[in-house]
């Protein structure tokens, strides 16, 4: 027994080693050279090293393949799947924590209409596609149909945010609408998942699912989400105040995450998916003053664990199971894209955008990512979808994520996206740019850090938008500021309303710097410090003694 446990753990450790190295390398390759999101590289790394590709070959040292196929629906061992589950909880906990509720509330009307339209239309189109094209699926309430519907709803706004920032369109009407819609999209997607998991559970127990039961399940799921979120937001400030008494952000972050794990477990026992509890905990903490520190403290485990999740999801892709559904995969992908284009585009048209603007908004809502993978993983683990449909989901995710960036970039060419009347009203809202040029890159790096620190001091949320470039989004309430650094140039974009604030803040940061430089000048001269450091370097002990005499 002991030997087999040791063997099991040895294999697990070797698997993790392969996953961590492969996912990081491919993630880097994708983002650096192919200019694609890292998540795609991580996902594909799993497909390459997983049990359906390289991972199936026998390695003599461990008397078997590195990734043997276990029995059951999952393609990886339960131990490894456990790591992926914890990673998905970390992912959703941090997504919740990063939720920008104030921006959402500020632009809630347009954002809600666009987000809601996107979710409802995509869901219905995905669900209908399953009923029309899959012979096994006989009703709209079939778990496979429900999962395919849910899978086509989630948006991953990370890619869009990066492009908007690069094109300096983040605070454009289209930009803020997308960012606000994405918040609602996340929440709705998660509630929808809760409902779908509930229905699928009843369905797989063999019972039919009458409409009234769906109502009960939906009410339960939404109720759980709403009650937990409201209680969470109410008690979070008190809780964090209490936790701050430990005087250690490590403890605050760890206990917060511990609570996230607890609520994740609780939501599963309540018949909902674990990630809902994790997301709600993050969302509750997002408006507290420790949110930024908790996020920074957990960033390390996020960077380590989350690629494991994406890689393990890639491992679940069974290429042979996809042969029969490749054509359906293409249809589903097109439907998922059209669902967002119409679902978000039509409400955008109705809320003051012209065709160009509506297309920009819907192109921004196209990329799929993390939540799609989590939903697909849950569907596969629960048996609601098979390996074939899991493959279809991954296919849709890959294609829509690759197609949307060039589409979005192209869509932003040309004039205003607002209808003539609105455009006139918004004319003076064009972003103001502040450009600062410094003598060297090192100095610019330092000053950039000082400026972002000054924003943090003013309680702004800072998020780095791109791993390879210095692009930051700085937010607080309705204020949106984009900061980027290219070599020795810093550029800050903001709306005219906050231009003075930004100028004052940058000035104060530079004045602090002046103080630091003056302090450094009053220090002992570098020459004499250097002489002190070198003194006696090439002297023997005897010489030293003589010198001291």
């Amino acid at each position, binding site marked *: 027994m002991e030997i087999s446990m040791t063997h099991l753990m040895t294999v697990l450790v070797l698997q993790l080693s392969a996953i961590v190295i492969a996912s990081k390398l491919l993630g880097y390759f994708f983002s650096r050279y192919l200019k694609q999101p890292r998540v795609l590289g991580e996902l594909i790394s799993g497909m390459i090293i997983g049990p359906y590709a390289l991972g199936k070959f026998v390695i003599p040292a461990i008397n078997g393949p590195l990734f043997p196929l276990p029995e059951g629906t999952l393609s990886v061992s339960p131990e490894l799947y456990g790591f992926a589950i914890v990673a998905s909880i970390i992912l959703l906990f941090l997504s919740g924590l990063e939720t920008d509720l104030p921006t959402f509330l500020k632009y809630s009307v347009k954002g809600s209409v666009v987000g809601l339209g996107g979710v409802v239309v995509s869901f219905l189109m995905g669900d209908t596609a399953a009923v029309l094209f899959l012979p096994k699926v006989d009703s709209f309430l079939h778990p496979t149909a429900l999962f395919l519907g849910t899978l086509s709803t989630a948006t991953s706004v990370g890619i869009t945010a990066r492009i908007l920032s690069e094109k300096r369109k983040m605070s454009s009407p289209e930009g803020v609408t997308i960012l606000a819609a994405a918040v609602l999209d996340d929440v709705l997607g998660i509630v929808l998942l809760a409902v779908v998991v509930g229905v699928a559970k009843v369905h797989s127990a063999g019972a039919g699912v009458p409409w009234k039961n769906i109502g009960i399940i939906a009410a339960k799921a939404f109720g759980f989400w709403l009650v937990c979120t409201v209680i969470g937001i109410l008690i979070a400030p008190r809780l964090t105040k209490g936790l701050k008494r430990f005087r250690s952000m490590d403890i605050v972050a760890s206990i917060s995450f511990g609570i996230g794990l607890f609520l994740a477990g609780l939501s599963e026992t309540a018949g909902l998916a674990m990630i809902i509890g994790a997301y709600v905990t993050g969302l509750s903490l997002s408006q507290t003053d420790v949110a930024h520190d908790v996020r920074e403290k957990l960033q390390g485990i996020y960077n380590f664990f989350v690629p494991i999740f994406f890689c393990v999801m890639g491992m679940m892709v069974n290429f042979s199971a996809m042969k029969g559904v490749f054509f359906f995969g293409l249809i589903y992908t097109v439907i998922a894209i059209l669902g967002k284009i119409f679902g978000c585009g039509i409400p955008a048209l109705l809320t003051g955008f012209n065709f160009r603007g509506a297309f920009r908004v819907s192109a921004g809502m196209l990329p799929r990512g993390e939540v799609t993978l989590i939903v697909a993983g849950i569907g596969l683990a629960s048996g609601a979808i098979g390996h074939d449909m899991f493959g279809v989901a991954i296919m849709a995710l890959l294609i829509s994520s690759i197609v949307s960036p060039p589409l979005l970039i192209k869509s932003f060419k040309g004039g205003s996206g607002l209808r003539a009347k609105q455009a006139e009203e918004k004319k003076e809202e064009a972003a103001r740019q502040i450009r600062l040029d410094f003598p060297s890159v090192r100095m610019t790096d330092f000053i950039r850090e000082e400026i972002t620190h000054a924003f943090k*001091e*003013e*309680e702004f949320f800072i998020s780095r938008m791109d791993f390879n470039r210095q692009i930051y989004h700085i937010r607080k309430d309705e204020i949106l500021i984009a900061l980027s650094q290219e070599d020795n140039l810093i550029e800050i974009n903001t709306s005219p*309303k906050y231009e003075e604030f930004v100028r004052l803040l940058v000035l*104060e940061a530079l004045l602090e710097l002046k103080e630091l430089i003056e302090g450094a000048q009053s220090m002992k001269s570098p020459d004499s410090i250097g002489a002190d450091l070198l003194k006696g370097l090439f002297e023997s002990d005897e010489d030293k003694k003589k010198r001291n005499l």
Partner: protein
Amino acid sequence: MNLRKVLTEDVLSLNLDGRTKQEIIENLLDILMKTGKVKNRQDALDCLLEREAKMSTGMQNGIAIPHGKTEAVEELIACLGIKKEGVDFQSLDGKPSTIFIMTLSPKNRSGPHIQFLAEVGQLLKEEEIRNKVMNAQSKKEILDCIL
């Protein structure tokens, strides 16, 4: 930022006595001292003068915003004072300063400080509002036109 919460009648002065930059800063600090929220006058004064030494806080159009972060306060406090004759504050446009908003925030603690200054600055950008503040007969009148 809730300006109404920070700027109340107790922290307004329709006519500051000072004739020099230093005196005006001390006048304003004395107003803040009366609120009981400044624990150490000297520390607060040092921090304000240090900031002025780096670069004057005299802006354009007669507005000056002396400010600093100090351990002498526990929360953001501010006051507003007027000197109709104007005082040389080494302002950006070289004109004498007439409307002064002093702000002190706790050091080593995050919170809006510059944002507060910017918001007050934004209000006083309009010439009409500046004129109303300058010609106000009572503290209430000042509050009415800026809040």
